[in-house]
């Protein structure tokens, strides 16, 4: 006698294709190269997991979406007392740190590129292509005397703090 055994299929749970059940908003408030990346990496990862994603750029983070500045973000050892020399334990003396910004920026850019991670403007292109939403802070725009046409074309709007709070109802929030 033969019995046919059907093994239960093991199928990964990728969620449903309907409306997202999770929503995230990341506030990008820093314009240093090293502080621009954490928000972008998490935003990109969230989109890849099917999460609805909003990025809100404020204060120095505004540089990431301002056409005239977005290609010139820098990484400075000044004020960063945790920074040590690459591959060693020696810390960079703060007295000479400000003079090292150019070199540090170049090195960080290379390390990031070596990992196949895009530059900031290119990264934002990818985030928008994956369905992410970009928003600019009203007060930062006013302070810098910038308008929507000074920003990346895919910034959806310049919005107030209360617009942002309204928009992110039930969202998980991250401030960087």
């Amino acid at each position, binding site marked *: 006698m033969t019995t046919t055994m*059907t*093994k239960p*299929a*093991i*199928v*990964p749970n*990728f*969620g449903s*294709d309907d409306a*997202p059940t999770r929503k995230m908003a990341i506030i990008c408030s820093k314009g240093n190269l090293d502080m621009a990346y954490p928000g972008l*990496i998490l935003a*990109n*990862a969230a989109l*890849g*997991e*099917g999460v609805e994603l909003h990025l809100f750029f404020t204060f120095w983070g505004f540089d990431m979406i301002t056409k005239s500045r977005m290609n010139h973000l820098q990484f400075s050892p000044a004020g960063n007392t945790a920074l040590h020399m690459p591959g060693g334990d020696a810390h960079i003396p703060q007295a000479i740190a400000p003079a090292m910004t150019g070199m540090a920026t170049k090195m960080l850019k290379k390390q990031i590129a070596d*990992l*196949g*991670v*895009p530059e900031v403007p290119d*990264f934002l292109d*990818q985030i928008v*292509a*994956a*369905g992410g939403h970009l928003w600019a802070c009203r007060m930062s725009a006013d302070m810098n005397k910038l308008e929507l046409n000074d920003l990346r074309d895919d910034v959806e709007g310049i919005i107030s703090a209360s617009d942002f709070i309204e928009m992110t109802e039930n969202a998980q929030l991250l401030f960087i």
Partner: protein
Amino acid sequence: MPTIEIAGREIDVNEEGFLTKFDQWDEAIAKVLADQIGVEMTDEHWKIVNFLRTDYKTAGETATSRRVQVVGGFPVKDQFALFPKKPAKKMAYIAGLPKPKGCV
């Protein structure tokens, strides 16, 4: 490690259901895997899946969405249209590869 049965063949998978043996994969199996997660395979889907298989052989790890765009030439936007919500994981699953490890 668990196994599943597709078309009378025993296939090794991990606890999530991703194939664990590169050589046990073929297009017939990919079709069943795709069907199980609601993806209907078209020429465009096959092109990406075949790129992932070829790239895995040379790179030794599963391509991320970024790599599928930059090296494979398949824009991220298209990946999301073809494999909705979680393209990187879905593409890897259908291609019989592990989930991508890279952050970007």
